[in-house]
């Protein structure tokens, strides 16, 4: 539109806006009679104005203040609070920011927790905070974090504690599945600390993996003792009779107690009822369950859903867990059940009871390896009491059984051999990739690329040799990393593929539900996270599919849930489905969708536009690759390898026998 025309439009717009909303339409109709364009312009602008609401009314700084603050968003580094000088920010929690600080009097390192500002505005709470924190600081146990000082300086309320150089149980769990011995040890250390605290009348109220730290030497430390209570409104904890006070509950929420995770909360906490030490027993039970099953017992898409699960749902049996502890589960199930009883009265009454059970479980686990004979004398007694005739009959039956079993086994094994041979005859003998010549490798890759493309639903495109060679570069690179210790070494490709199978059914479900080729879902984690469910990439990207927290949030996965494959997998499928939708017609080439996953759909489309008119033009990643010299540098440097490395990953995963992997082709695990 020309500026002069805009002036005409604006005049009509302004005059219309000066009139009451109901008269605007008829006014525009009158003024613009005979000028349809003017009428449309004015009408759509009026509609936009009326719909705009508070659009751009709030200055940008209201939303983007943190952009300006950048890395010293909290501006506290170097700040002095009383005798403490802040060195660096360690993290943040519901209880405020935590810093590493130097106590200038004793020149020792401390963890300094600065309380949230809202805290200081409530005198009653502040007094309670001081008295409670003092009580907590009187707790003396090796597994309880020592509180050095609770104080105030220039209006900043702080708690100075011992600084632990270690990791939280939450971090450890995300890194790897904890060995059983370590899990039991952890429960024991936490429980013995709780026993001391409970004896002193202090309930922790917020036992969770993030509040349990493991020092490098293995000693556990429980953080934030007695602190959670301070975040509750006075009313709730001081007048326990008044439990149905809804206003109190609302304050409770606002005050920030439930700002953190709700997953470890006991049913009585979820309902806002008064709590006692059995709340800690519940939460410890949740932690135990999580360590054993590698998943939380109670979860939900929202906080409310999670609370509903805590109140109403029974967690899955430990034996159903898809990890190494399923075998030991039956022994621990009753212990977990007794911690996670919804009725307070059904739980362990004290931590000591729990510790006693833990001891029994440990003995059983230690004893399991010993011969069963000594523990089951009954069986022998039975045979000795039988008559000799009975014994001989028993021997005959036994022989018969053995004979029949032998025949069956023999027949079964021959049939197996036969099927092996027929299979071997019907397909050509498998030649290992490592034994192939250069030419054979290229042919193999070209052929497999076509197969993978068709599995992705792409139209067949004959690849030029340079594209095949590019894929081969990655196949060779992966193949060179086949060796190495299996499970422990995450860098070994063998380990990566061996980690994959348990996730395939979930991936298949999630991707099929979004109509995204399942094969994309299967091989993205290979190149993203190496199938480590909690692999942390650069910039906070996490999980099997390496999302950034902000992207994950858009797809309904909180930062805490990013390591939860159950949550992240559907989110990844959704994300890719969105890209397919955004690419529209271009999404017919699923390889482009793949590229867009790494680089964005808009960028993919811009790139296609750039190479359109090239003689080999097709809407395909391989066209982009063939014309890479004309594309911007970032394509060559950063993106061009993404799709080929995906294909390389898929070629290996779909031909495991060629690479000496002892797994079935991954896509065969996806089911119907």
């Amino acid at each position, binding site marked *: 539109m020309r500026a002069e025309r805009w002036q005409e439009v604006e005049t009509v717009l302004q005059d219309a806006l000066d009139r009451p909303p109901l008269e605007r339409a008829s006014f525009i109709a009158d003024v613009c009679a005979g000028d349809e364009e003017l009428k449309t312009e004015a009408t759509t602008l009026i509609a*936009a104005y009326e719909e705009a609401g508070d659009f*751009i009314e709030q200055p940008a*700084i209201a939303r*983007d203040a943190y952009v300006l603050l950048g*890395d010293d968003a909290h501006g506290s580094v170097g700040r002095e609070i009383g005798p403490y000088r802040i060195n660096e920010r360690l993290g943040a929690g519901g209880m405020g920011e935590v810093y590493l600080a130097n106590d200038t009097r004793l020149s020792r390192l401390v963890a300094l927790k600065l309380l949230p500002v809202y805290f200081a505005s409530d005198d009653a709470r502040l007094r309670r905070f001081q008295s409670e924190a003092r009580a907590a600081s009187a707790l003396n146990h090796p597994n309880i974090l020592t509180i050095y000082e609770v104080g105030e300086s220039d209006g900043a309320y702080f708690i100075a504690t011992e600084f632990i150089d270690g990791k939280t149980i939450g971090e450890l769990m995300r890194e790897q599945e904890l060995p059983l011995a370590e899990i039991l040890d952890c429960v024991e250390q936490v429980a013995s600390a709780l026993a001391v605290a409970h004896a002193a009348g202090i309930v922790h109220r917020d036992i969770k993996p993030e509040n349990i730290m493991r020092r490098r030497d293995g000693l556990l430390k429980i953080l934030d003792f007695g602190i959670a209570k301070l975040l509750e409104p006075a009313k709730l904890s001081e007048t326990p009779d008044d439990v149905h006070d809804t206003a109190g509950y609302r304050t409770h929420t606002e005050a920030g107690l439930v700002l953190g995770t709700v997953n470890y909360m006991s049913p009585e906490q979820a309902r806002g009822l008064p709590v006692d030490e059995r709340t800690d027993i519940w939460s410890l039970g949740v932690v135990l369950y999580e360590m054993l099953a590698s998943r939380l017992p109670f979860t939900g898409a929202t906080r409310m859903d999670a609370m509903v699960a805590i109140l109403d749902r029974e967690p899955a049996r430990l034996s159903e867990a898809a990890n190494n502890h399923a075998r030991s589960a039956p022994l621990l199930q009753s212990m977990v059940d007794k911690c996670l009883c919804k009725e307070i009265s059904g739980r362990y009454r004290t931590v000591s009871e729990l510790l006693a059970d833990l001891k029994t479980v440990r003995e059983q686990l230690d004893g399991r390896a010993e011969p069963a004979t000594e523990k089951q004398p009954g069986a022998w007694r039975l045979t000795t009491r039988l008559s000799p005739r009975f014994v001989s009959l028993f021997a005959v039956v036994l022989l018969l059984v053995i004979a029949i079993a032998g025949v069956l086994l023999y027949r079964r094994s021959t049939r197996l051999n036969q099927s092996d041979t027929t299979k071997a005859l019907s397909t050509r003998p498998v030649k290992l990739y490592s034994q192939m010549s250069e030419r054979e490798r290229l042919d193999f890759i070209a052929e497999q690329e076509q197969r993978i493309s068709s599995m992705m639903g792409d139209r067949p495109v004959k690849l030029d040799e340079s594209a095949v060679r590019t894929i081969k570069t990655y196949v060779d*690179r992966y193949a060179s990393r086949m060796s190495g210790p299996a499970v422990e070494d995450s860098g070994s490709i063998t380990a990566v593929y061996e980690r994959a199978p348990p996730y395939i059914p979930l991936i298949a479900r999630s991707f099929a539900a979004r109509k995204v080729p399942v094969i994309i879902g299967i091989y993205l984690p290979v190149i993203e996270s190496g199938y480590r469910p909690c692999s942390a990439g650069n910039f*906070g990207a996490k999980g099997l599919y390496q999302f950034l927290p*902000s992207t994950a949030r858009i797809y309904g996965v909180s930062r805490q849930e990013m390591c939860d494959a159950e949550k992240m997998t559907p989110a990844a499928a959704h994300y890719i489905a969105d890209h397919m939708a955004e690419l529209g017609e271009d999404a017919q080439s699923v390889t482009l969708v793949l590229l867009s996953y790494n*680089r*964005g759909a808009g960028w993919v489309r811009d790139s296609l536009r750039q190479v359109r008119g090239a003689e080999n033009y097709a809407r395909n990643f391989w066209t982009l690759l063939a014309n890479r010299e004309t594309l911007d540098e970032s394509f060559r440097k950063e993106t061009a390898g993404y799709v080929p490395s995906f294909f390389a990953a898929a070629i290996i995963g779909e031909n495991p026998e060629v690479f000496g992997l002892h797994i079935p082709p991954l896509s065969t695990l996806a089911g119907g």
Partner: protein
Amino acid sequence: MFILIDRKREKKTKVFIPEQKTFDPIDARIRRAMKTLTADNLTGLLVEWREGDQAAFDRLMPLVYDQLRRIAHRYVQRERNGHTLQTSALVNEAYLRLVDQHVVWQNRAHFFAVTARVMRHILIDHARRRRYAKHGGEARQVSIEEAAAMSMERAAELIALEEALDELAKLDQRKSRVVELRYFGGLSLEETAEALNISLMTVRRDWRAAKAWLYRRLKETE
């Protein structure tokens, strides 16, 4: 992200190598410039900028940026305290901190203008870098803190607004400046009138027309 790929090896092959590009985000440039600039020459720079010297703007940026950070800091703090606040009051304070009491009115107005412009630059620069920052791409230049500070949605929204504002400027320069001062500079209607040396009534009318126009434009591109 090429998790499985040995980066050292990649460097040798030369093709398809994600290399660390030396990226120079706007705030890094500003921080460098900070070292060479003091508050003393602010008034002079404001005059130069008003007289059309674009280089003066570049030299003003660091000073203003520093003030913006203070403003943002106060903003966040007060927000946490549950106070509502006027951004323009903060901009005023910032200005008073920078200059002596005997400032001419026009300089103050220009300080407002330059603040708004700097804010716009910073946010758009950030949004552009943020846009492809899921992973791969230019993600390597975005730190976790930066990524956490702006969502992808917000980045897209800001870029769309920037483009729309540029279009509006071609059609109606003054309206685009009103929006810049109010939205990026946080100025009130009155201060905007003062800064642009136009009547309050004109600012009101410009604002509502610009708002309608921009809103419609953004809806179209959605």
